[in-house]
């Protein structure tokens, strides 16, 4: 069927949805990110109080101490909606896949000294459990958070963390020749080895934290903000001295992911802190509290690699994170 349309008569009636136009202040075309993000979550006229939380509505601003006039003030600088997120990750996993294949094909891990491999195994593989906790924590933020601007990005983050837990498991299998001995040993260490207990304790505490924004600060800013630089920069750098870039290739996804995700975390905190002094004070209090906790929990992890230098390594990372908070997230710690 061919259709002839008089071109002058097919001017669109409108350029975007009304809610988007109201937010843009004009009826003009909007990005795919904005059209599929703004106002997706219902805000009014809920039918039934949840049986699992009868004091709140299904979606309720009262599940955090943070107060926002508009929960769509948050923007993801990556502009991730599902399609943008998944295609970005697909490209990264493609690179990861090639890295793993390259390391396996050339048996590069065989060239890494046994001692270094043991250190790598002990430092990286137990973290798959911490990533699992991060997965549940971000799913919690998606489930009980307010406004699609934050909650959708949290759901992507949650799945990313499961992916990272699986990459760490895979690295374990590469190190142990697919026997899963390293995974079993790592789980044992996670459950019993003294070096991991403070971190496990913190993870369990976060999994029981009720205020979702507090959890956001604790997990995505404080804990990740120390753990990622410690593991994927410092420890990785230390291992490079003996392992060349082999281990770094296996970790490339994680270090790239952290750089990208920090932009979202910083932007989120900055927006919330910029909203009011009360928010800012609350966020700073949480940030200080959880940076303390995370620093404490990570010191024995760092000591496995840096021995007595661990304290100073952690102190440096704390300082970096404090600077980052001031420069990027609008928090004075």
């Amino acid at each position, binding site marked *: 069927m061919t259709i002839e*349309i008089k071109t002058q*008569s*097919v001017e*669109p009636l*409108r*350029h*975007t*949805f*009304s*809610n988007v136009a109201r937010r843009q202040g004009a009826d003009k075309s909007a990005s795919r990110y904005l*059209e*599929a993000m703004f*106002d*997706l979550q*219902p805000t*009014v*006229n*809920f*039918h*039934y*109080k*949840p*049986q*699992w939380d009868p004091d709140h509505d*299904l979606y309720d601003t009262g599940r955090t101490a943070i107060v926002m006039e508009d929960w769509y003030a948050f923007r993801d600088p990556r502009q991730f909606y*599902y*399609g943008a997120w*998944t*295609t970005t990750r*697909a*490209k990264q*996993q493609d690179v*990861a*896949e090639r890295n793993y294949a390259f390391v396996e094909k050339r048996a590069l891990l065989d060239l890494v000294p046994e001692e270094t491999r043991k250190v790598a195994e002990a430092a990286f593989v137990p973290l798959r*459990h911490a*990533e699992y906790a991060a997965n*549940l924590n971000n*799913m919690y933020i*998606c*489930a009980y958070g307010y406004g*699609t601007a934050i*909650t*959708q990005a949290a*759901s992507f983050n949650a*799945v990313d963390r*499961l*992916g990272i*837990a*699986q990459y760490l*498991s*895979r690295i374990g*299998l590469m190190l142990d020749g*697919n026997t*899963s001995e390293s*995974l079993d040993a790592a789980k044992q260490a996670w*459950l019993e080895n003294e070096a991991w207990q403070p971190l496990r*304790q913190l993870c*369990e505490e976060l*999994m*029981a934290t009720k205020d979702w924004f507090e959890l956001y600060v604790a997990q995505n800013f404080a804990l990740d903000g120390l753990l990622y630089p410690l593991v994927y920069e410092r420890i990785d750098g230390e291992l490079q001295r003996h392992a060349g870039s082999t281990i770094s290739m296996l970790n490339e996804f994680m270090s790239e992911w952290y750089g990208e995700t920090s932009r979202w975390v910083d932007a989120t905190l900055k927006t919330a802190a910029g909203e009011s002094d009360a928010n800012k004070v609350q966020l700073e209090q949480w940030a200080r509290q959880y940076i303390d906790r995370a620093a404490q929990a990570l010191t024995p992890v760092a000591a496995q690699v840096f021995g007595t230098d661990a304290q100073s390594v952690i102190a440096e990372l704390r300082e970096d994170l404090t600077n980052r908070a001031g420069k990027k997230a609008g928090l004075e710690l």
Partner: protein
Amino acid sequence: MAAKRLSLREKYQKFTRDLAWEPSYQDKANIFPQTEFEGIHIHDWDKWEDPFRLTVDAYWKYQAEKERKLYAIIDAFSQNNGQFNVSDARYVNALKLFLQGVSPLEYAAHRGFAMAGRQFSGVGPQVACQMQSIDELRHVQTQIHTISQYNKFFNGFHDWNHMHQRVWYLSVPKSFFEDAMSAGPFEFVTAISFSFEYVLTNLLFMPFMSGAAYNGDMATVTFGFSAQSDESRHMTLGLEVIKFMLEQDERNVPIVQKWIDKWFWRGYRLLTLVSMMMDYMLPKRVMSWKEAWEMYFEENGGALFEDLSRYGIRMPKYWDVSVKEKERLSHEAWSIFYNYDHAAAFHSWLPEESEMEWLSAKYPDTFDKYYRPRYEYWRSLQEKGERWYNSTLPMLCQLCQIPMAFTEPDDPTQICYRSSEYNGDKYHFCSDGCKDIFDDEPEKYVQSWLPVHQIYQGNCGGASVPEVLEWYHLVDGQDNKEFLDSQDRANWNRWKGESDSDTDQPVKAAVND
């Protein structure tokens, strides 16, 4: 080195459930506080059979591939003004109903499965629910991106989510999903994964997607089929959840049966909107509601419940009523919308003569007897320039929230009224199915946000129709009312270079302008 390689299954277990551990610093109940209150007994989460084994990297890879293909088609669709290829401007109203009524449920599913994916204390169901959660976000977002193009050229789409939270008929789907989400995780997955996606999904997706295909809407066909590949994962999750609960403990059986009864009826009542879409809103019909119900519920569903009988599960209560209603459901529903279309954000119309013939052929026992005379009467009013709109607000069923227009199971001429008393107040229902659900949890359903009550209580912008429409963000004269008088139709004719007389069809000639 010679390594004993893990099997795929073992590897997947290592990559998922082996990530979890027994907490010792926190009471497990603080981490997973919702696992017990519904009365479901789980002894061994390890008995959960993963309905699919997909690692996250593989998920990214497959899904990105699908997204690339889908967005290429969406781009081409808008560049080529594909919206002008649909069969007829009436068709677009089915899409309006979809965006206002179904897409918000995809979003609700996204959040609901995030809740379930966080709350189940076994990693197997956590991971399956989490993946479904982001799939459902995919669905709502691809739907918005596809329909965005229609919104630029047709009325009724422009404030779909604002309307979803306010407009009377949209409280039907909204309350359905909120009912499930406000229950615990086990009831939620029974409601959505099993009862809705496994048992009834074909009755939602087939009509919309095949309807799109028959009516030349290639963009909708594409997102529909693309979503369907996710849907097959969701359906296997639905069945696994049911079997898991039934196999874990005998005490779960009566609870699961009660939920199946409830959610069958809830889902069936929700599909009322789909039934009228199939029989009235598609200019090119796919099949009748009755045929679809016979094929997808009576045959397929019958076989499923036969299979589940070894667990002590029987057919959902009142399934026989749904069979009795299949010859009237769509007609009763369309009549409601014809009556109240001044307050609805899509157009209604009377079937053309050829469509009346199709309806008589599909519904030989009821159409000519009960509904044709009604339409002919309404047409005679339209011919006199007196298109009928009902200005009296209808009474709504307290449970399903549809106006009380359904008829007695055994008498299609008698409106069915049921009621219950609770705390000294009287509540009204459209059916025994709805009444039973209320009677089981009255403290929940007395809370229903009933649009008509809310108008009477002054919570909807005012007492007059124009005030309420404004509060709905429903533009009078654009989004609502009779199709023949609509801007949509006038624009369509202009865009297609057809004058009114070119497109003359019997019914249009009969209308006095």
